[in-house]
Every structure is written in structure tokens, then in C-alpha cells.
């Protein structure tokens, strides 16, 4: 499944860039994030809890920054699995920052995510709906967070 | 994990069993009582191969906890015939070729029986709706519908 979108903020691009890569920002913005730590320069360790009705999953996964071109472009890949073995999660995300006229920065993202395992049995629709919701909450939170920094 | 007492009647025979609460009705029928006529084919409650009658109503035995059948009367495909004497529906299924691989047949027969018990003179449309929950991958259903219709029209009244 593909999630993509963009939004714009009035802020210096470097500041946005730094905030974005900060584990604290991520932990604050990713819904259900229980732990996000930087393992090394390129790797994050994450634990994210998600709930759909009676189903709760905890995804333990690594995110690796495969391509970093400050302050404009990041590509990252992540994968991991639910602690209860309900599914395995793989994602590839690209984020682009672009300075527009008038000091505005446009942030666009494209995330290809895939879940396999028992969870996938539960229904493509619900996973997609949930992902969409998580995406919305994340971008809203990020938007807020970034606004608060600038 | 503690086991619980399950008392129920299956095809007229009374049983008392100690089972784990997570056991499904289909599992107890097949594994504990050896009534393997009842099949299981989807794991999502979608195919109805496991249909049995519970106090006269058709249910999917894969979607009923065995303990919930405590005190109930169950009828499985093995209970349809009386010794060597097949039920009207069974005879009609034979005559109409209403089965092929036979794997869905037990569930199909029980569903059809439930339909006729409730509505002895169903229309063709009602028959279609009555067996709608049961998947058959072989026959294309129409021979099954003809078989049920024949029974409804009284063609199998005489004892077989």
C-alpha cells in the first residue's frame, strides 16, 4: 500500500531538517510510538504499538536511512515484526523538502508499506484505513511539532 | 489450563466429556467423538462445510465454542440416515448427482435439512438462499437445488 502526501510550513529548511531527524520528534509524532532511539548514524530502533479494536500489535522494527542528502532528501527503509508474531512489516519511505517562494518549505512524502502474516488476513481494507489514519495523525502532529519549533 | 465438563447429545447419543474451553464444537465432534463427516475448510467461518444442527438450528460448528453446546442436541451428517435407510434428502442428493468431491456435502445436506425442517415447501429462490452460506466448488449448486426441490415436492416420501 502506498501512502503519500505533502504539506507546507513557513520555516528555515535546515531547522525543519534537524527536527525531522530527531528521535524525540519522531516519538512524539508517530501515533503509538513507545520507543524510538537512534542506534547509530543511520539506524533507528523503534517500538510502535497499534490498535484496531480488539487487536493490539507491537511492531519492533529498525529503520535505516539509506540515502541522506541534507537538507532536502531522505530515503529510508524499515522492517520488523509484531512481538506477538501477528505480522511482519516492511516499509520504504522517501521524504523531500523543497523551499518555495516566501520562506515556505514544502514537505512531501511517499511511503510504501506492506504487512504480511496473520494480520494481513484481517483485511486489506482495515489495514489501509488504519494506515491512513495513522498517517493523518502523524502528519498533523509533525506539522504541529514543526510549527512549535519555528 | 483447567478442563470443563461438556454434556450434550449428538445424533441421539448422550456424551460427557472434559475439554479445554478453547475447543470448538467442530473439533470436539471430529477429534473426540470421531464424527469426521463434519468437515472444516476455511478457518474464517465462510464456507459452512462444518454445518451441524444445534437444537434444530443450523450453525457453523467452527464458529461455536464446544462449551456453548452444553446441554444441547446436535445433529451431524452421521445422524441423517437411520441405519442403512437413507433420509429423503440423502436419496435425492444421490439421484440428482448433488455432490462431486463430497467434501462440502455433509454441511450442504445439514443446511438443506434445516431449510426443509423450517420450510417444507421452499421455492427455488428460497432454496438458493437457504444454502447460500455453503460453498461448493464442484457442482455449481444447481444439482443440489434440484435435489432439495425434489424432496420439497414430495418425491421422496416413501421410505427408502
Amino acid at each position, binding site marked *: 500500500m502506498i501512502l503519500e502526501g505533502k504539506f507546507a510550513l513557513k520555516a528555515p529548511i535546515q531547522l525543519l531538517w534537524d527536527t525531522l531527524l530527531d528521535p524525540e520528534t519522531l516519538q512524539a509524532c508517530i501515533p503509538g510510538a513507545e520507543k524510538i532511539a537512534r542506534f547509530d548514524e543511520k539506524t533507528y530502533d523503534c517500538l510502535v504499538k497499534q490498535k*484496531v*479494536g*480488539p*487487536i493490539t500489535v507491537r511492531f519492533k522494527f529498525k529503520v535505516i536511512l539509506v540515502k541522506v542528502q541534507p537538507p532536502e532528501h531522505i530515503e529510508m527503509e524499515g522492517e520488523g515484526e509484531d512481538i*506477538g*508474531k*501477528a505480522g511482519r512489516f516492511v516499509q520504504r519511505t522517501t521524504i523531500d523538502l523543497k523551499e518555495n517562494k516566501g520562506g515556505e518549505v514544502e514537505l512531501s512524502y511517499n511511503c510504501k508499506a506492506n504487512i504480511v502474516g*496473520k*494480520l494481513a*488476513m*484481517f*483485511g*486489506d*481494507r*482495515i489495514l*489501509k*484505513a*488504519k494506515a*491512513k*489514519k495513522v498517517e493523518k495523525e502523524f502528519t498533523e502532529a509533525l506539522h504541529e511539532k514543526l510549527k512549535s519549533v519555528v | *489450563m*483447567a478442563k*470443563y465438563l461438556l454434556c450434550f447429545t449428538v445424533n441421539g447419543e448422550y456424551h460427557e466429556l472434559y475439554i*479445554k*474451553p*478453547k475447543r*470448538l464444537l467442530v473439533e470436539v465432534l471430529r477429534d473426540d467423538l470421531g464424527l469426521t463427516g463434519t468437515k472444516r475448510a476455511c*478457518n*474464517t*467461518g465462510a464456507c*459452512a462445510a462444518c*454445518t451441524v444442527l*444445534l437444537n434444530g*438450528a*443450523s*450453525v*457453523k460448528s*467452527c*464458529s*461455536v*465454542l464446544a*462449551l*456453548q453446546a452444553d446441554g444441547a442436541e446436535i445433529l451431524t451428517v452421521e445422524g441423517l440416515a437411520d441405519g442403512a435407510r437413507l433420509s429423503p434428502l440423502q436419496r435425492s442428493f444421490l439421484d440428482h448427482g448433488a455432490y462431486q468431491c463430497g467434501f462440502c456435502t455433509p454441511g450442504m445436506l445439514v*443446511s438443506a435439512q*434445516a*431449510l426443509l425442517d423450517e420450510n417444507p415447501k421452499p421455492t427455488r429462490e428460497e432454496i438458493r*438462499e*437457504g444454502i*447460500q*452460506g*455453503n460453498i461448493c466448488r464442484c457442482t455449481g449448486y444447481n444439482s443440489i437445488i434440484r435435489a432439495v426441490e425434489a424432496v420439497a415436492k414430495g418425491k421422496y416420501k416413501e421410505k427408502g
Partner: protein
Amino acid sequence: MIRDFVYLRADTLKETLDILEQCKDDSKIICGGQSLLILMRQGLVSPRYLIDIKHLEELDYIKFSSQEGLKIGAITTHRTLEKSALIKKRYPVLVDMEKNLASVQTRNWGTIGGNLAHGDPTGDPGPVFIALNAIVKTANKERERTLPLEEFFIDFFETALEENELLIEIQIPVVPPKTAVAYEKFNIIKNDQGIVSVAASMTADDSGIKCKDARIVLGAAAPVPKRAKAAEQMLRGQKLNERLLDQAAEKASKEAEPVADVHASEDYRKFLVKALTKKMVMRSWEQAKRLT
């Protein structure tokens, strides 16, 4: 694989609520279990305690009075509703809805309370009961409370039920005069869950010319059964004509927030909402205006 659990069953509602209070942190209620057991089999839900209420006869009833309307006990099966002469006479739309809800086997064992408490936005009863202005009654050890069904659904598979609460009754208040309700779902395989569904309740004014009230509820078109309030507003107080119907249907389709899946795209679902809204509003209106 279903993980082991402790099976709990009490003889009365009161005792059941006591048990629920004690093990609320890690328990699930099972009634018909038609949805729950599938999740448990996948290993997606593994409660420590499973509380069985299937046999609680005190919750198995259909009552009607002209003052209070309809009351349905939570463990009433779909099939009981479908075959009830009372329901057939007074709420034919419910019989229609039930006849097309899943397979006979599921309807024989599954219950109305279980269906609603599962909180599946593709469920059939949700939209119809909301159109009928239904209220749910819940109880915990301490108290009972009621809330509109519309507020009961919170998110995908999430309801307003607290961990220590049980859904015990569904009520349909007295239906205003000259009111009719229609419901239909769109699917390819009959009795399958709807790709989308729409319930519409129309009330005609005394003269039978103008729409006095309208309630339109969309199923499988959002994380919860969703009222198309803007569309309803367009109809209230108006004389119905083709153009207005089209506009209202268009509005309802804009209010829908469907998600694409293997069965249909977002656009197609929105289109279906439009088509079904028009059809259901028309159908219920035609009935409503003729009522006395």
C-alpha cells in the same frame, strides 16, 4: 490457534457484571462469537478470560409498547429478529436487513448485541438502527446507562463500551408518524458484507408533500456507520424532486470517507453511496408519504 483462556459463565446478568468488573482488564465477552472466534483463531485476540453470555435468557427478548417503542435484548439472535411476527409487522425494514445479513448459520447463532458491540462499520444493523434513532443500553456492576447508537460507534471495531460494561439492550423509540425506513447494501455476492450500504428514514409532513425529517446513514463508508447530515439538512422542509434528490445524494457521497480495498476503489464507493442514497431516500419517501 486459539490460546488458552479461562472460561467464565454466570447464571444471571448481575453475576456476569460482577465477573466482568473483576477481570475487565483482560477479558472478552462472547455471545454468538461469530466475529470474535475468527479473530481468536487467527491469534489476533487472546483474552485471558472469556465471559460467556450466550445463555443469559434475561437478555433474550423482543418487547414492544406503543408508548416506549421497541426493546430488544442484546443476546437476541439475528434469526429471532428475522422471524419475529412483531418485527415483521412494525419494522419490516429490519426483517429485510436480517434476511440479507450473512448466512443462515451465522444468523442462527450470532446476536444483535454481539454484532453492534463488534463495531464493524460494514455491519448491517448499525445503519438501519441509527436511521431508526436507536438507543443502546449498557450496564456495569454499578449502573446502567443509555446512549444513542450513533454515539456508540467510535472507530473501526471500537465502541463506547467501557471495559467493565456490557451492551444489554437496543431500543427503538416510538417512530414518528408518517415515517418509513429503507435499507440496502451493494454487494456482488448476496448476503455478503456490503461494499457500501445506505439506510434512509424519511418523515413526511401531515400533508404528505414535504419532508419533515430525514435521517441518512452510510455503512462501510467510514470507520463507523455515518450520518450524512448535510444531505439530510438539504431534504428537511423541502418538497422532494429529482433535482433535490440528486443534490442530496451527491452531498451524501461527499460526506462519505470510504477506503479503497480489493473490492472497490474509493471513487466507486462514493458513487455507490450516491446511487444508494437516492434510491433509499426515494423508497422510504414513497412509503412515508402514503402512511397515515
